[in-house]
């Protein structure tokens, strides 16, 4: 099937976007609840986002 890999790439981006969006949103919630822990939350958020991004890119290259 011609061009189906582009559909796959789109799905990957949607999935990764949703994932990183959730992480960001949850981190915002957490910082709002405990502003004094914002540094630690940000670090954890960045690591989690980076891991998802890594998977997303790897899949994007495969597509």
């Amino acid at each position, binding site marked *: 099937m011609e061009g189906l890999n582009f559909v796959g790439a789109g799905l990957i981006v949607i999935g990764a976007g949703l994932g990183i969006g959730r992480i960001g949103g949850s981190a915002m919630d957490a910082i709002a609840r405990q502003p004094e822990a914002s*540094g630690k939350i940000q670090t954890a958020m*960045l*690591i989690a986002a*980076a*891991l998802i*991004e*890594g998977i997303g*890119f*790897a899949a994007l290259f495969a597509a």
Partner: protein
Amino acid sequence: MVISNKALRFIIATFVICLPFTSMANPEKDTTTVQTEVTHEVTEASHEAHAEPTDVKSKVKAFIKHHVLDSHEFSFFQDDETGVHYGFPLPIIIWDNGFQIFSSSKFEHGEAVAESNGNFYKINHHDGKIYKTDAAGTITEDEATGFPKNERPLDLSITKTVFSILLAALLMFFIFISLAKSYTKNNGIASGIGRIFEPIVLYVRDEIAIPNIGEKHYKKYMSYLLTIFFFVLFLNIFGLMPFGINVTGNLTITFSLAILTFLITNFTANKNYWGHIFWMPGVPKVMRIVLAPIELLGVFIKPFSLMIRLYANIFAGHIVLMSIIGLMFIFKSWLGSSLSFGLSFALSLLEILVAFLQAYIFTMLSALYFGGAVEEHHHEEAHH
């Protein structure tokens, strides 16, 4: 907080100096760069071999492709009407029965055959690599794969990437030597350019190394973490300057960096780390057998994801940025141009953030892996 006037002046001066470089889209007025004009004689034969793209779209595509690849010369821009290239050549070092050293200007931007001690070389137009040819410069291509069948000599040239790496290394060397020296000269207070870098060094130590590796072991990893942080950061920033450098968006470079992290992680790991991989404590016996191959695979996936992440982020950033700049030449209307200018400006700012973020993430994850490798045996006792 005292802000040194000198450092501030230095930043402003650097900014002003860099301003003319931003006129890349408007090449005729750029007079600040070192210009080595090499008139190139386009021979009929080489013209037939690769027809120059004529319409704007394929020209933009060719330019982007040329930018993201490594090359044997610095080329700032070229004048299409006169065919003059502006840039400077880099040395070519080839091991082919003894070192063959000559300047890349001999290739005349990939158009001509270079001769050295009776050997003939030509740059293949498709992959930018040097191949050994006969005096006429014929490159025979394999019909099935499209790759040239010619012999490839061992190429140790100072290419654009190597040049940029050396530049970054030199810059780091001078900045951090002067930072270290300023402590003794200035009674333990950093001075000059070191004032900008001291907080970053402390940040890497206090926010990346100590929390992830731990007070006990972090010292032996500090030199590597600092080196990798500033190396990636400098080369990311270099990539945003309009010299056409793309180092961290090059898979071989990120591969080498990831290999270093992989080797350091596995060679400094204690038995606790290997125990967690092959015989996971605290889980049922059956699960341990299932987990072992997965954990072993994880050992290789970790540096692999480091490699892909940095490469893909920088590579994609460069392509998107250049495509948006390229829209200016495709639309050719005031609306399209101003839109593309605004977009590329905003995206450049985002890319500066990405440059810092990727340097931080790479260092952070390296530190995390090192931390996992030297973690002490303590929390299992609590379970049993």
